[in-house]
Protein backbone atom coordinates (compact mmCIF):
# COMPACT_ATOMS: atom_id res chain seq x y z
CA UNK A 1 0.00 0.00 0.00
CA UNK A 2 0.97 3.54 -0.49
CA UNK A 3 2.07 5.77 2.32
CA UNK A 4 0.56 9.18 2.05
CA UNK A 5 1.57 11.94 4.38
CA UNK A 6 5.23 11.30 3.92
CA UNK A 7 7.51 12.64 6.62
CA UNK A 8 8.02 16.34 6.23
CA UNK A 9 11.57 17.11 5.37
CA UNK A 10 13.09 20.53 5.38
CA UNK A 11 9.82 22.40 5.23
CA UNK A 12 10.33 25.91 6.45
CA UNK A 13 7.75 27.80 8.45
CA UNK A 14 7.36 30.16 5.54
CA UNK A 15 6.36 27.40 3.19
CA UNK A 16 3.74 26.02 5.45
CA UNK A 17 2.11 29.40 5.73
CA UNK A 18 1.41 29.57 2.04
CA UNK A 19 -0.82 26.58 1.62
CA UNK A 20 -0.23 24.57 -1.48
CA UNK A 21 -3.04 24.53 -4.01
CA UNK A 22 -4.42 21.03 -4.39
CA UNK A 23 -4.96 19.95 -7.98
CA UNK A 24 -7.63 17.40 -8.84
CA UNK A 25 -8.41 15.59 -12.05
CA UNK A 26 -12.08 14.79 -12.55
CA UNK A 27 -12.17 12.13 -15.24
CA UNK A 28 -15.02 10.47 -17.08
CA UNK A 29 -13.79 7.23 -18.51
CA UNK A 30 -15.26 4.83 -21.00
CA UNK A 31 -18.64 4.74 -22.66
CA UNK A 32 -20.53 6.62 -20.01
CA UNK A 33 -22.30 9.79 -20.94
CA UNK A 34 -23.51 10.81 -17.51
CA UNK A 35 -21.50 13.84 -16.56
CA UNK A 36 -23.91 15.86 -14.45
CA UNK A 37 -22.44 14.40 -11.29
CA UNK A 38 -18.89 15.05 -12.48
CA UNK A 39 -19.80 18.67 -13.22
CA UNK A 40 -21.32 19.16 -9.78
CA UNK A 41 -18.25 17.67 -8.17
CA UNK A 42 -15.88 19.77 -10.28
CA UNK A 43 -17.71 22.88 -9.19
CA UNK A 44 -17.77 21.89 -5.53
CA UNK A 45 -14.04 21.19 -5.59
CA UNK A 46 -13.41 24.51 -7.27
CA UNK A 47 -15.42 26.32 -4.61
CA UNK A 48 -13.37 24.51 -1.98
CA UNK A 49 -10.32 26.23 -3.44
CA UNK A 50 -8.94 23.34 -5.47
CA UNK A 51 -7.76 23.54 -9.03
CA UNK A 52 -9.86 21.15 -11.03
CA UNK A 53 -8.93 19.72 -14.40
CA UNK A 54 -11.98 18.25 -16.06
CA UNK A 55 -11.29 15.62 -18.68
CA UNK A 56 -14.50 15.78 -20.66
CA UNK A 57 -16.54 12.73 -21.60
CA UNK A 58 -15.59 9.35 -23.03
CA UNK A 59 -11.92 9.29 -22.13
CA UNK A 60 -9.81 6.22 -22.66
CA UNK A 61 -7.68 5.02 -19.75
CA UNK A 62 -4.45 6.20 -21.40
CA UNK A 63 -5.92 9.68 -21.81
CA UNK A 64 -6.69 9.78 -18.11
CA UNK A 65 -3.13 8.66 -17.39
CA UNK A 66 -1.76 11.32 -19.74
CA UNK A 67 -3.77 14.00 -17.99
CA UNK A 68 -2.88 12.80 -14.49
CA UNK A 69 0.84 12.70 -15.29
CA UNK A 70 1.11 15.96 -17.22
CA UNK A 71 -1.09 17.98 -14.93
CA UNK A 72 0.75 16.54 -11.91
CA UNK A 73 -2.51 16.35 -9.99
CA UNK A 74 -2.66 15.40 -6.34
CA UNK A 75 -5.99 13.68 -6.73
CA UNK A 76 -7.19 11.48 -9.59
CA UNK A 77 -10.97 11.29 -9.42
CA UNK A 78 -12.49 8.70 -11.71
CA UNK A 79 -16.21 8.85 -12.29
CA UNK A 80 -17.81 5.68 -13.63
CA UNK A 81 -21.48 4.95 -13.76
CA UNK A 82 -21.37 2.35 -16.49
CA UNK A 83 -20.31 -0.63 -14.39
CA UNK A 84 -17.04 -1.05 -16.31
CA UNK A 85 -14.89 -0.09 -13.33
CA UNK A 86 -13.29 -3.53 -13.06
CA UNK A 87 -11.90 -3.19 -16.57
CA UNK A 88 -11.08 0.49 -16.76
CA UNK A 89 -9.76 1.41 -13.33
CA UNK A 90 -6.93 -1.18 -13.30
CA UNK A 91 -5.78 0.09 -16.70
CA UNK A 92 -5.52 3.59 -15.31
CA UNK A 93 -3.66 2.35 -12.24
CA UNK A 94 -1.19 0.42 -14.42
CA UNK A 95 -0.62 3.45 -16.60
CA UNK A 96 0.07 5.65 -13.59
CA UNK A 97 2.59 3.12 -12.31
CA UNK A 98 4.24 2.96 -15.71
CA UNK A 99 4.87 6.70 -15.65
CA UNK A 100 5.95 6.73 -12.04
CA UNK A 101 2.91 8.75 -11.11
CA UNK A 102 1.11 6.39 -8.76
CA UNK A 103 2.76 6.64 -5.36
CA UNK A 104 2.15 10.26 -4.51
CA UNK A 105 -1.36 10.51 -5.86
CA UNK A 106 -4.71 9.99 -4.22
CA UNK A 107 -6.90 7.75 -6.38
CA UNK A 108 -10.64 8.16 -5.88
CA UNK A 109 -13.48 6.41 -7.65
CA UNK A 110 -16.97 7.83 -7.76
CA UNK A 111 -20.05 6.04 -9.01
CA UNK A 112 -21.90 2.84 -8.48
CA UNK A 113 -19.52 0.13 -7.38
CA UNK A 114 -20.83 -3.08 -5.73
CA UNK A 115 -19.27 -4.01 -2.38
CA UNK A 116 -17.37 -7.00 -3.75
CA UNK A 117 -15.80 -4.89 -6.44
CA UNK A 118 -14.92 -2.18 -3.92
CA UNK A 119 -12.61 -4.50 -2.02
CA UNK A 120 -11.03 -5.60 -5.27
CA UNK A 121 -10.40 -2.01 -6.42
CA UNK A 122 -8.99 -1.01 -3.06
CA UNK A 123 -6.64 -3.95 -3.22
CA UNK A 124 -5.39 -2.72 -6.56
CA UNK A 125 -4.58 0.73 -5.23
CA UNK A 126 -7.74 2.81 -5.16
CA UNK A 127 -7.72 4.89 -1.98
CA UNK A 128 -11.40 5.61 -1.55
CA UNK A 129 -14.71 5.00 -3.28
CA UNK A 130 -17.62 7.40 -3.06
CA UNK A 131 -21.03 6.01 -3.92
CA UNK A 132 -24.51 7.47 -4.08
CA UNK A 133 -25.31 9.53 -1.01
CA UNK A 134 -21.73 10.61 -0.32
CA UNK A 135 -21.71 14.29 0.53
CA UNK A 136 -19.48 16.93 -0.93
CA UNK A 137 -18.18 17.84 2.52
CA UNK A 138 -17.21 14.25 3.12
CA UNK A 139 -15.21 14.14 -0.07
CA UNK A 140 -13.58 17.54 0.38
CA UNK A 141 -12.61 16.70 3.96
CA UNK A 142 -11.23 13.39 2.82
CA UNK A 143 -9.06 15.10 0.20
CA UNK A 144 -7.83 17.71 2.66
CA UNK A 145 -6.87 15.01 5.13
CA UNK A 146 -5.33 12.58 2.72
CA UNK A 147 -3.84 14.63 -0.09
CA UNK A 148 -0.27 13.47 -0.47
CA UNK A 149 2.55 15.52 0.98
CA UNK A 150 5.13 16.22 -1.64
Amino acid sequence: MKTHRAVRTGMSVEQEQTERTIRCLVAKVGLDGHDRGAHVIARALRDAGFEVIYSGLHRAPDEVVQAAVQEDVDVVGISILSGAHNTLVPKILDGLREYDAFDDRLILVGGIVPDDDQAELRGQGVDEIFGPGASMEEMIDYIHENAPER
Partner: protein
Amino acid sequence: MSDLVADLLAGKHSALARVITLIENRSSGYREIISDLHQHTGTADVIGVTGSPGAGKSTLVDKVAATYREQGQTVGVIAIDPSSPFSGGAVLGDRIRMASNAGDMDMFFRSMSARGSLGGLSTATTDAVTALDAFGKDKIIVETVGAGQNEVDIVRTADTVAVLVPPGSGDDVQMLKAGILEIGDVFVVNKADLDGADRTVQQLREMLQGQSGRPDSGHHGATELAGDHGDASTDAADDEADESETWNPPIVETVANRGEGVEDFLDALANHGAYLDRTGRREGQARERFAAEIRTLLREDANELLVDELDRRGGIEQYVDAVIERHTDPYTVVDEVLEPLRECLDERRDGN
Protein backbone atom coordinates in the same frame (compact mmCIF):
# COMPACT_ATOMS: atom_id res chain seq x y z
CA MET B 1 22.11 19.21 -10.14
CA SER B 2 19.12 17.64 -8.48
CA ASP B 3 17.64 14.26 -9.40
CA LEU B 4 14.54 16.03 -10.64
CA VAL B 5 16.53 18.10 -13.12
CA ALA B 6 18.44 15.01 -14.25
CA ASP B 7 15.17 13.12 -14.73
CA LEU B 8 13.66 16.00 -16.67
CA LEU B 9 16.67 16.26 -18.96
CA ALA B 10 16.52 12.49 -19.42
CA GLY B 11 13.00 12.90 -20.76
CA LYS B 12 10.92 11.68 -17.85
CA HIS B 13 7.41 13.06 -18.17
CA SER B 14 6.53 12.99 -14.51
CA ALA B 15 9.70 14.97 -13.69
CA LEU B 16 8.71 17.69 -16.16
CA ALA B 17 5.24 17.79 -14.65
CA ARG B 18 6.64 18.04 -11.13
CA VAL B 19 9.05 20.82 -12.06
CA ILE B 20 6.14 22.86 -13.41
CA THR B 21 4.26 22.23 -10.15
CA LEU B 22 7.23 23.54 -8.16
CA ILE B 23 7.33 26.58 -10.43
CA GLU B 24 3.62 27.22 -9.93
CA ASN B 25 3.84 26.87 -6.18
CA ARG B 26 7.08 28.82 -5.90
CA SER B 27 8.28 25.89 -3.82
CA SER B 28 11.70 26.02 -2.23
CA GLY B 29 14.36 24.98 -4.68
CA TYR B 30 12.55 26.01 -7.82
CA ARG B 31 15.01 28.80 -8.48
CA GLU B 32 17.94 26.43 -8.49
CA ILE B 33 16.05 24.16 -10.85
CA ILE B 34 15.42 26.97 -13.32
CA SER B 35 19.05 28.02 -13.04
CA ASP B 36 20.16 24.47 -13.87
CA LEU B 37 17.73 24.23 -16.77
CA HIS B 38 18.56 27.55 -18.36
CA GLN B 39 21.70 26.36 -20.16
CA HIS B 40 19.69 23.62 -21.86
CA THR B 41 17.21 26.03 -23.41
CA GLY B 42 17.05 28.12 -26.53
CA THR B 43 16.01 25.57 -29.12
CA ALA B 44 12.21 25.75 -28.99
CA ASP B 45 9.90 27.95 -31.01
CA VAL B 46 7.52 29.65 -28.61
CA ILE B 47 4.10 30.63 -29.91
CA GLY B 48 1.58 32.64 -27.92
CA VAL B 49 -2.11 32.30 -28.64
CA THR B 50 -4.56 34.74 -27.14
CA GLY B 51 -8.13 35.88 -27.69
CA SER B 52 -11.43 36.32 -25.93
CA PRO B 53 -13.19 33.38 -24.22
CA GLY B 54 -14.93 31.25 -26.80
CA ALA B 55 -12.80 32.47 -29.69
CA GLY B 56 -11.64 28.91 -30.25
CA LYS B 57 -8.10 29.07 -28.92
CA SER B 58 -8.02 25.59 -27.41
CA THR B 59 -9.55 23.98 -30.47
CA LEU B 60 -7.10 25.69 -32.81
CA VAL B 61 -4.16 24.86 -30.54
CA ASP B 62 -5.28 21.23 -30.56
CA LYS B 63 -5.27 21.11 -34.35
CA VAL B 64 -1.98 22.97 -34.61
CA ALA B 65 -0.36 20.64 -32.11
CA ALA B 66 -1.68 17.59 -33.95
CA THR B 67 -0.23 18.90 -37.22
CA TYR B 68 3.16 19.51 -35.63
CA ARG B 69 3.06 16.01 -34.20
CA GLU B 70 2.34 14.59 -37.66
CA GLN B 71 5.45 16.40 -38.85
CA GLY B 72 7.38 14.56 -36.17
CA GLN B 73 7.89 17.54 -33.89
CA THR B 74 7.37 17.39 -30.14
CA VAL B 75 4.96 19.88 -28.64
CA GLY B 76 4.38 21.46 -25.25
CA VAL B 77 1.28 23.48 -24.45
CA ILE B 78 0.64 25.71 -21.45
CA ALA B 79 -2.98 26.76 -21.17
CA ILE B 80 -3.79 29.46 -18.66
CA ASP B 81 -7.29 29.83 -17.26
CA PRO B 82 -8.63 32.30 -14.74
CA SER B 83 -9.02 31.34 -11.10
CA SER B 84 -11.66 32.52 -8.69
CA PRO B 85 -10.60 35.58 -6.75
CA PHE B 86 -12.80 34.33 -3.89
CA SER B 87 -11.97 30.71 -3.31
CA GLY B 88 -8.75 30.58 -5.31
CA GLY B 89 -10.17 27.52 -6.99
CA ALA B 90 -10.45 27.00 -10.71
CA VAL B 91 -11.90 24.66 -13.25
CA LEU B 92 -9.32 24.25 -15.97
CA GLY B 93 -11.21 23.08 -18.99
CA ASP B 94 -8.89 23.61 -21.95
CA ARG B 95 -7.84 20.01 -21.81
CA ILE B 96 -11.27 18.91 -23.02
CA ARG B 97 -10.48 20.33 -26.45
CA MET B 98 -7.27 18.40 -26.83
CA ALA B 99 -9.02 15.48 -28.47
CA SER B 100 -6.67 15.20 -31.44
CA ASN B 101 -3.73 14.45 -29.19
CA ALA B 102 -5.35 12.10 -26.73
CA GLY B 103 -2.99 9.65 -25.15
CA ASP B 104 0.04 11.05 -26.99
CA MET B 105 2.67 11.54 -24.31
CA ASP B 106 4.96 13.57 -26.59
CA MET B 107 2.28 16.18 -26.67
CA PHE B 108 2.70 17.66 -23.21
CA PHE B 109 -0.32 19.68 -22.19
CA ARG B 110 -0.41 21.56 -18.93
CA SER B 111 -3.21 23.69 -17.49
CA MET B 112 -2.20 26.57 -15.27
CA SER B 113 -4.50 28.80 -13.28
CA ALA B 114 -3.95 32.50 -12.96
CA ARG B 115 -3.45 32.34 -9.21
CA GLY B 116 -3.92 35.95 -8.36
CA SER B 117 -2.51 35.91 -4.88
CA LEU B 118 0.84 34.43 -5.79
CA GLY B 119 1.38 37.10 -8.40
CA GLY B 120 4.03 36.91 -11.03
CA LEU B 121 2.01 34.79 -13.42
CA SER B 122 4.17 35.94 -16.27
CA THR B 123 7.25 34.82 -14.34
CA ALA B 124 5.70 31.41 -13.75
CA THR B 125 4.83 31.10 -17.42
CA THR B 126 8.34 32.07 -18.47
CA ASP B 127 9.76 29.46 -16.11
CA ALA B 128 7.36 26.79 -17.35
CA VAL B 129 8.45 27.56 -20.92
CA THR B 130 12.04 27.18 -19.76
CA ALA B 131 11.20 23.73 -18.37
CA LEU B 132 9.52 22.61 -21.61
CA ASP B 133 12.37 24.02 -23.69
CA ALA B 134 14.97 22.21 -21.59
CA PHE B 135 12.94 19.03 -21.86
CA GLY B 136 13.51 19.32 -25.60
CA LYS B 137 10.14 20.34 -26.98
CA ASP B 138 10.40 21.66 -30.54
CA LYS B 139 7.29 23.82 -30.36
CA ILE B 140 5.86 25.43 -27.24
CA ILE B 141 2.44 27.02 -27.32
CA VAL B 142 1.23 29.35 -24.57
CA GLU B 143 -2.51 29.84 -24.61
CA THR B 144 -4.28 32.48 -22.57
CA VAL B 145 -7.45 34.51 -22.39
CA GLY B 146 -6.68 37.89 -23.83
CA ALA B 147 -7.72 40.56 -21.41
CA GLY B 148 -5.53 42.99 -19.62
CA GLN B 149 -1.91 43.62 -18.91
CA ASN B 150 -1.24 40.27 -17.31
CA GLU B 151 -2.07 38.39 -20.46
CA VAL B 152 -0.14 40.80 -22.61
CA ASP B 153 2.90 40.15 -20.43
CA ILE B 154 2.39 36.43 -20.72
CA VAL B 155 2.22 36.26 -24.47
CA ARG B 156 5.34 38.37 -24.62
CA THR B 157 7.22 35.27 -23.58
CA ALA B 158 6.48 34.06 -27.10
CA ASP B 159 8.49 34.58 -30.28
CA THR B 160 5.31 34.81 -32.30
CA VAL B 161 1.95 35.95 -30.98
CA ALA B 162 -1.32 34.93 -32.61
CA VAL B 163 -4.51 36.79 -31.70
CA LEU B 164 -7.81 35.01 -32.30
CA VAL B 165 -10.94 36.95 -33.10
CA PRO B 166 -14.35 35.33 -33.42
CA PRO B 167 -16.52 36.88 -36.09
CA GLY B 168 -19.59 38.98 -35.70
CA SER B 169 -19.57 40.92 -32.51
CA GLY B 170 -18.34 44.43 -32.24
CA ASP B 171 -17.43 43.68 -28.66
CA ASP B 172 -14.47 41.63 -29.68
CA VAL B 173 -13.17 44.44 -31.74
CA GLN B 174 -13.63 46.60 -28.68
CA MET B 175 -11.49 44.12 -26.80
CA LEU B 176 -8.83 44.49 -29.42
CA LYS B 177 -8.78 48.21 -29.00
CA ALA B 178 -7.64 47.73 -25.42
CA GLY B 179 -4.11 47.05 -26.54
CA ILE B 180 -3.98 43.56 -27.91
CA LEU B 181 -3.85 44.73 -31.48
CA GLU B 182 -0.29 45.87 -30.95
CA ILE B 183 1.00 42.52 -29.81
CA GLY B 184 -0.42 40.32 -32.56
CA ASP B 185 2.04 39.05 -35.16
CA VAL B 186 -0.64 36.94 -36.79
CA PHE B 187 -4.39 37.51 -36.58
CA VAL B 188 -6.82 34.66 -36.88
CA VAL B 189 -10.49 35.08 -37.60
CA ASN B 190 -11.70 31.73 -36.34
CA LYS B 191 -15.16 30.30 -36.98
CA ALA B 192 -14.81 31.84 -40.42
CA ASP B 193 -17.85 29.90 -41.60
CA LEU B 194 -20.13 32.03 -39.43
CA ASP B 195 -22.00 35.07 -40.65
CA GLY B 196 -20.07 38.24 -40.20
CA ALA B 197 -16.63 36.69 -40.64
CA ASP B 198 -15.89 38.74 -43.75
CA ARG B 199 -16.88 41.87 -41.96
CA THR B 200 -14.64 41.04 -39.02
CA VAL B 201 -11.71 40.44 -41.38
CA GLN B 202 -12.44 43.78 -43.01
CA GLN B 203 -12.66 45.59 -39.67
CA LEU B 204 -9.43 44.01 -38.49
CA ARG B 205 -7.64 45.01 -41.65
CA GLU B 206 -8.80 48.58 -41.27
CA MET B 207 -7.72 48.69 -37.67
CA LEU B 208 -4.30 47.27 -38.42
CA GLN B 209 -3.85 49.81 -41.19
CA GLY B 210 -4.93 52.64 -38.99
CA GLN B 211 -2.44 51.75 -36.35
CA SER B 212 0.26 54.27 -35.63
CA GLY B 213 1.62 53.05 -32.34
CA ARG B 214 2.97 49.79 -33.66
CA PRO B 215 6.73 49.87 -33.30
CA ASP B 216 7.44 47.86 -36.41
CA SER B 217 4.36 48.62 -38.43
CA GLY B 218 4.65 48.77 -42.15
CA HIS B 219 3.17 51.19 -44.60
CA HIS B 220 0.97 48.80 -46.45
CA GLY B 221 -0.94 47.50 -43.49
CA ALA B 222 -2.16 43.99 -43.05
CA THR B 223 -2.19 41.53 -45.86
CA GLU B 224 -4.71 38.82 -46.00
CA LEU B 225 -2.92 35.54 -46.37
CA ALA B 226 -5.46 33.95 -48.67
CA GLY B 227 -5.23 36.73 -51.21
CA ASP B 228 -1.97 38.63 -51.20
CA HIS B 229 0.35 35.93 -49.97
CA GLY B 230 2.55 37.34 -47.19
CA ASP B 231 4.64 39.84 -49.14
CA ALA B 232 7.03 40.24 -46.24
CA SER B 233 8.24 36.72 -46.74
CA THR B 234 8.49 36.59 -50.49
CA ASP B 235 10.28 39.78 -51.54
CA ALA B 236 12.94 39.63 -48.93
CA ALA B 237 13.59 35.91 -48.94
CA ASP B 238 16.58 36.28 -51.24
CA ASP B 239 17.88 39.40 -49.58
CA GLU B 240 20.42 39.44 -46.82
CA ALA B 241 19.55 40.57 -43.32
CA ASP B 242 17.52 43.69 -43.80
CA GLU B 243 16.80 45.38 -40.53
CA SER B 244 14.48 47.93 -41.99
CA GLU B 245 12.11 45.20 -43.16
CA THR B 246 8.78 45.46 -41.43
CA TRP B 247 6.24 42.81 -40.58
CA ASN B 248 2.68 43.19 -41.72
CA PRO B 249 0.51 40.96 -39.56
CA PRO B 250 -1.44 38.64 -41.83
CA ILE B 251 -5.07 37.83 -41.16
CA VAL B 252 -5.83 34.13 -41.46
CA GLU B 253 -9.30 32.65 -41.63
CA THR B 254 -9.82 29.32 -39.93
CA VAL B 255 -12.58 26.94 -38.94
CA ALA B 256 -10.64 25.25 -36.19
CA ASN B 257 -13.08 22.50 -35.27
CA ARG B 258 -13.00 21.23 -38.85
CA GLY B 259 -9.30 21.85 -39.24
CA GLU B 260 -9.82 24.34 -42.07
CA GLY B 261 -7.19 27.01 -42.48
CA VAL B 262 -4.81 25.36 -40.04
CA GLU B 263 -2.17 24.94 -42.77
CA ASP B 264 -2.49 28.65 -43.63
CA PHE B 265 -2.09 29.49 -39.98
CA LEU B 266 1.03 27.34 -39.70
CA ASP B 267 2.43 28.99 -42.84
CA ALA B 268 1.83 32.39 -41.28
CA LEU B 269 3.62 31.29 -38.11
CA ALA B 270 6.52 29.89 -40.14
CA ASN B 271 6.71 33.11 -42.19
CA HIS B 272 6.92 35.16 -39.06
CA GLY B 273 9.61 32.84 -37.70
CA ALA B 274 11.60 33.26 -40.91
CA TYR B 275 11.14 37.01 -40.70
CA LEU B 276 12.49 37.03 -37.14
CA ASP B 277 15.56 35.08 -38.23
CA ARG B 278 16.13 37.12 -41.38
CA THR B 279 16.03 40.47 -39.65
CA GLY B 280 17.83 39.42 -36.50
CA ARG B 281 14.76 40.32 -34.49
CA ARG B 282 14.62 36.94 -32.82
CA GLU B 283 17.80 37.75 -30.99
CA GLY B 284 16.54 41.23 -30.24
CA GLN B 285 13.35 39.82 -28.77
CA ALA B 286 15.29 37.37 -26.65
CA ARG B 287 17.44 40.20 -25.33
CA GLU B 288 14.36 42.24 -24.45
CA ARG B 289 12.76 39.24 -22.78
CA PHE B 290 15.76 38.46 -20.63
CA ALA B 291 16.13 42.13 -19.70
CA ALA B 292 12.47 42.21 -18.68
CA GLU B 293 12.88 38.98 -16.74
CA ILE B 294 15.87 40.29 -14.83
CA ARG B 295 14.01 43.48 -14.03
CA THR B 296 10.95 41.60 -12.82
CA LEU B 297 12.98 39.29 -10.62
CA LEU B 298 14.92 42.20 -9.18
CA ARG B 299 11.69 43.98 -8.36
CA GLU B 300 10.11 40.90 -6.80
CA ASP B 301 13.14 39.95 -4.75
CA ALA B 302 13.83 43.49 -3.59
CA ASN B 303 10.19 43.77 -2.62
CA GLU B 304 10.41 40.58 -0.60
CA LEU B 305 13.49 41.86 1.17
CA LEU B 306 11.69 45.05 2.11
CA VAL B 307 8.57 43.24 3.29
CA ASP B 308 10.79 41.29 5.69
CA GLU B 309 12.38 44.53 6.83
CA LEU B 310 8.96 46.07 7.44
CA ASP B 311 7.92 43.04 9.49
CA ARG B 312 11.11 43.29 11.51
CA ARG B 313 10.26 46.88 12.31
CA GLY B 314 6.88 45.85 13.60
CA GLY B 315 4.74 45.77 10.48
CA ILE B 316 3.25 48.34 8.20
CA GLU B 317 0.31 49.20 10.48
CA GLN B 318 2.25 51.45 12.84
CA TYR B 319 3.45 53.48 9.85
CA VAL B 320 -0.10 53.70 8.56
CA ASP B 321 -1.23 54.91 12.00
CA ALA B 322 1.44 57.58 12.01
CA VAL B 323 0.48 58.68 8.52
CA ILE B 324 -3.20 58.88 9.46
CA GLU B 325 -2.33 60.91 12.56
CA ARG B 326 -0.38 63.22 10.25
CA HIS B 327 2.80 62.64 12.25
CA THR B 328 4.53 61.62 9.08
CA ASP B 329 3.78 60.97 5.42
CA PRO B 330 4.24 58.03 3.05
CA TYR B 331 7.34 59.48 1.38
CA THR B 332 9.12 59.98 4.67
CA VAL B 333 8.23 56.46 5.75
CA VAL B 334 9.69 55.03 2.58
CA ASP B 335 12.86 57.09 2.99
CA GLU B 336 13.18 55.82 6.52
CA VAL B 337 12.76 52.17 5.59
CA LEU B 338 15.10 52.44 2.64
CA GLU B 339 17.81 54.39 4.42
CA PRO B 340 19.86 51.40 5.61
CA LEU B 341 19.72 49.94 2.11
CA ARG B 342 20.98 53.15 0.56
CA GLU B 343 23.73 53.42 3.16
CA CYS B 344 24.79 49.87 2.56
CA LEU B 345 24.96 50.35 -1.20
CA ASP B 346 26.90 53.59 -0.80
CA GLU B 347 29.37 51.87 1.49
CA ARG B 348 29.90 49.05 -0.98
CA ARG B 349 30.50 51.51 -3.77
CA ASP B 350 32.99 53.52 -1.72
CA GLY B 351 34.69 50.30 -0.72
CA ASN B 352 35.55 49.53 -4.31
